[in-house]
């Protein structure tokens, strides 16, 4: 558990290594891009892009999978307040069924980049390569754990997706979307067996 202030500073510096290298290469705006919701059986895939301010540190930013829900919410408000710019886009389950999840993820990321008012010089993306945006892409393996920009984007995407799923849980009660967020837990499968599929289920994901 990292809690102490100086540990957080060290962690932040370590995770800024890729950004610093790009700043030294002459880049001015670096956008981190990440997605949430590639695995679930229901709901959209959400991507977020985030351009952080070079001089403003947001301590505690980490891979959204390593943060508790409460910490994510706190960081979310801090990020949208302190970031230079951010955008978030969702691609719904019909499109996912049509063009498969990887392409849908890329589509969501592409829309995010286009939604940014500032054109970034470099895109840092977790693992996937994004063509035809005309911007240089640096794909990083385990990007959300090694880069602050990607981690910040992953927090935005995750929190947004969770909120979308909580809203869906009010439209489709009984499925427990507010708990499992569409992931294929036993409770979710039991609900599908009992009530059938909803319009937000990804048909290609269900056996």
């Amino acid at each position, binding site marked *: 558990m990292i809690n102490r202030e100086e540990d957080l500073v060290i962690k932040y510096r370590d995770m800024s290594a890729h950004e610093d290298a790009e700043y030294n290469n002459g880049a001015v705006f670096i956008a981190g891009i990440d997605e949430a919701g590639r*695995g679930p*059986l229901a709901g959209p895939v959400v991507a977020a892009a985030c351009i952080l301010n070079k001089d403003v540190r947001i301590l505690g930013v980490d891979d959204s999978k390593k943060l*508790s*829900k409460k910490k994510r919410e706190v960081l979310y408000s801090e990020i949208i307040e302190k970031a230079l710019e951010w955008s978030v886009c969702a691609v719904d389950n019909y499109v996912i069924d049509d063009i498969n999840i990887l392409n849908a993820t890329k589509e969501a990321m592409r829309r995010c980049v286009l939604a940014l008012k500032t054109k970034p010089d470099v895109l840092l993306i977790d693992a996937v390569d994004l063509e035809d945006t005309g911007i240089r892409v640096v794909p990083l393996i385990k990007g959300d754990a090694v880069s602050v920009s990607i981690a910040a984007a992953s927090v935005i995407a995750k929190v947004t997706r969770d909120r979308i799923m909580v809203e869906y849980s009010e439209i489709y009660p009984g499925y427990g979307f507010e708990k499992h*967020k569409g*992931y*294929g837990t036993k409770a979710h499968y039991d609900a599908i067996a009992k009530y059938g599929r909803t319009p937000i289920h990804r048909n290609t*994901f269900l056996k």
Partner: protein
Amino acid sequence: MIFPGLNSADKGRFAEDFTVHFLMLSGYSVLSRNYSVYRIGEIDIVALKGETIIFIEVKGRVNEELFAGYEGLVPLKKLRKIQRTASIYMDNNQVGDLNCKIVLAYVHIARDKYHTKINFRTLL
């Protein structure tokens, strides 16, 4: 061999049962077994003691001579799957405030069942 009829699924089951008994005797409460999330991953045992929740991956071996160290037992990809499943578990069950860790339980199943040994290794 003492377990002539035991296939590998049975051995895995035995190792998991053994780990669960061991944990309970050590004061842990077992919250869940074989918690799985489709397309994401599976966790063998979820246990809780005090303020710490532990996610346990169980590995059982009968032949001690084949043991070549803990390093290769859980590949990175598998660890990432466990990590993702664990984070979904923590979100689903409102236990986000607890400390957590991912642990490997290595069970050496003895040929006579009285000498079965267990070792723990923190993975993450």
